[in-house]
Every structure is written in C-alpha cells, then in structure tokens.
C-alpha cells in the first residue's frame, strides 16, 4: 500500500476525470487538463486581484507590474522594441509555464510540464509562430536565417547552411526536452528521496530507521528549494529562448 505510493513514476500517471470522445480522438478531461485549467484560473485571479490601477502600487500590484516589466524587458533586450508585438504571447507562455511548474511543487498535484507532449506542443507553438511570422513579414528573406553574411561562400554551402538547418530543426526538440527533463527529473528525485526516508522507517522500524532517514530527508529538504528555483529558471529560459527565436523572425539576417 505504502509501496505503491513510493513508485517515483506513478505521480506522472494520467487519470480520466470526465470522459469525452470526439470522432476517434479521446479528448477526455484528465488530471493533467485539470491542472492546466487550475493554472489559468490562478493566473487570471492573481492578475485581476492585483491590478487595482492605483497610482502608488501596493504589494500585490507591484508584483504584477514587476512581472510585466520583467517580461517586457526580456523581450526588449533579446528581440528589440519591435518584438513587443509578441508581448502577450511571451507573457502568457512564461506565466503559464511558471504556474504549471510551481503548482506541480504542491504535494499530490500533477505537473503538466512533466509530460513531453505538453512541452513539445508549447515549443511547436513557438516555432510555428516564428516560421509563420517570419515568412509573412520577410517572404523569402526569411531564408537569410540560414545564409549568414560575412562568411566565404564555399564554407557557407558546405558547412554553415547544414549547421543552421540542423540547429533550426532541433530548436523545438531542445526547447521541449529541456523543460520536460528538468521538471520530470526534479520530481523523480524529490519523490525518490522522500520515499527512501519513508521506506527506511517502514523497513527498519522507528529506532534505526529514523536515524537512517536523516540523510534522504535532508536531501529532500535541500532539493525542494532547488526545485522551486528550477521551476522559475525553466519558465524563464523557455520564454527567453522564445524571444531569441522571435528575434530571428523579426530580423532574419543576423
């Protein structure tokens, strides 16, 4: 019974909450979908409650405005001022991933970003936006992305263009795997150490078991703040790379 709870992988299992089938697709509302909706509701509630439009902001309003400025500055520094047209998209992406990661830190909550398909869909949204906007704005000029200036032509054809194409194709993979792997590994590790502390006590009894549980318990304690940091950093990295890629769509000739 306890041992089933100790399986570090079972926390990633998906359960149907509401059955829903459209055609041959199973679109059931699952615990994963629930956490996505919870994240959206939390974000909206937070921003509604904290944007009071006061001239002198209170604490909650300051946090909302700081987040706003934080994302705006991130876009400005990596994609330029014209990148601000993507501000709502980047902000939504950043705050959605951040909330999904942070909500996953609550015990017994499902972490939506620990599933590769979720992070991959988000990454494909970004790359899709980059390609569509890049082609719409620059036409064939978007291909300059693979044709950097200031390099000898032989070198370009033989070396640079294949490298650029491979790096462009690997972008959605690296973007999604980075976020997924961080969240997945972090949660496995947390569960492992916490579970180890518990199984020490159940296997060896309270007296020697509690002594043996000190080390894994301390590890859990140390890993928890680290995981909060990772939750923030990964959301930040995802948003920052989104800005960098969007900058390519805005200014394809490096």
């Amino acid at each position, binding site marked *: *019974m306890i*041992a089933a709870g*100790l*399986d570090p*992988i*079972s926390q*990633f*299992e*998906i359960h149907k909450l509401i059955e*829903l089938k459209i055609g041959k*697709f*199973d*679109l*059931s*509302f*699952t615990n*994963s*979908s629930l956490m*996505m*909706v919870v994240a*959206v509701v939390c*974000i*909206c509630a937070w*921003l*509604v409650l904290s*944007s009071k*439009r*006061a*001239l002198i*902001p209170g604490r909650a*309003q300051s946090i*909302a*405005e700081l987040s*706003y400025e934080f994302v705006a500055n991130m876009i400005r520094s990596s994609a330029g001022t014209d990148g601000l047209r993507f501000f*709502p*998209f980047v*902000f*939504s*992406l950043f*705050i*959605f991933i951040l909330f999904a990661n942070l909500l996953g830190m609550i015990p017994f909550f499902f972490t*939506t970003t*620990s*599933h*590769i398909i*979720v992070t991959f*869909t*988000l990454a494909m*949204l970004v790359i899709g936006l980059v390609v569509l906007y890049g082609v719409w704005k620059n036409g064939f000029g978007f291909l300059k992305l693979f044709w950097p200036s200031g390099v000898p032509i032989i070198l370009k054809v033989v070396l640079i263009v294949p490298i650029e194409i491979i790096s462009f194709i690997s972008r959605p993979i690296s973007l999604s795997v980075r976020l*997924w792997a961080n969240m*997945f590994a972090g949660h496995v590790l947390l*569960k*492992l*150490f916490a*579970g*180890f502390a518990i*199984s020490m006590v159940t296997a060896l009894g309270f007296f020697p078991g509690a002594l043996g549980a000190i*080390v*894994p318990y301390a*590890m859990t304690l140390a890993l928890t703040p680290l995981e909060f940091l990772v939750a923030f950093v990964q959301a930040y990295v995802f948003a920052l790379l989104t800005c960098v890629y969007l900058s390519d769509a805005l200014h394809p000739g490096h």
Partner: protein
Amino acid sequence: MLNAIMLTGLRLAAAAPKGDHGGEHAGDKAFPPFDPTYFPSQIFWLLVSFFALYFILGQVLLPRIGETIEERNNRIADDLDSASRMQREAEDAEKTYERALADAKAKARNHAETTRQSIDAELAKELEIADTQALKQAEAADIRIRKIRTEAMANIDNIAAEAAQATVETLIGKKITLAAVKKVMG
C-alpha cells in the same frame, strides 16, 4: 556516497511496486510521460487553456497593467516637468527681486546725495548772509564808537579848561574867562 544512496533508493522504489501488485497490470504499462494514449487529450486541453489564457491576458489584463504603468510614468514625467518649470520661475522671480533691490538702493543713494548737496548749498548761503549782517553791524558799532570817542575827547577839553580856570582862580584869586584859558591851551 550520494550515488550509493540514490542507487539504493532507486532499487527500493523500483522493487516496491513489483512486490506489491505484481500481476495486476504487468507489462502493458507504458512510461507515463511518453504514453501516447492521452496525447490528443493533452494537446487539446493545452491549446484550449493556453489560448483562453492568451486571450484573457492579451485583451483584458495586460492592457490594464500596461496602462497603469504608462499612466504612472506620464504622471511622473509631468510632475518633473512642472517642478523644473516652477524652479525656473522661482529663479526668475529671485533675479527680478534682486534687480529691483539694486535699483532701489541706487535710487536711495542718489536721493541722499542730492539732498546732502542742497542742504550744503543752503547752509553756505545762510552762513554768508549771517556773515555780511555781522560785518554790517560791526561797522555800525565802529562808527558809533568813533563818534562817542570824539565827543568824549571834546568834553575832555572843556573839563580840562574848566579845571585849569578853577586852578588859576584858586592860585591867583582872579577869575579868568574860559575863552582865555582855551586860548592859552591852544
């Protein structure tokens, strides 16, 4: 050390479910994060919730925050502007005040100077008048003194003659006339 703990933990954790519910759903369980059974559901709900969030944030909440920040920045810029304008005005006022003060001082100095000069002139005139008057009076007094002296000198002759007459009369017992005495005296 750390590795050993992790390995033991992994073995413990991996061993646990097998021992507990071995045959129930053995083998057919895919690795959950890669299990394609729920891929359509996850993609669908992710797109629904993400675009709902994108729409709400982009249309309502972010413009609200952005406007608040914009308003505040405008207000601060305005306040700074009016502050610098007021300072400039204050400096101008101070300059005008100093100029007026300097003017007033110069005027006062001029006024004092002219007043002093006119008083000096008046004083000099009055002194002159007083001097001439004094001189006139002194001259008149001189004339009177001279007149009195001549009169007195004339009287002295008569007195001397009378004294001589009286002396002669006492000495010789004979009365002589004043005219004779005067003749003798010359």
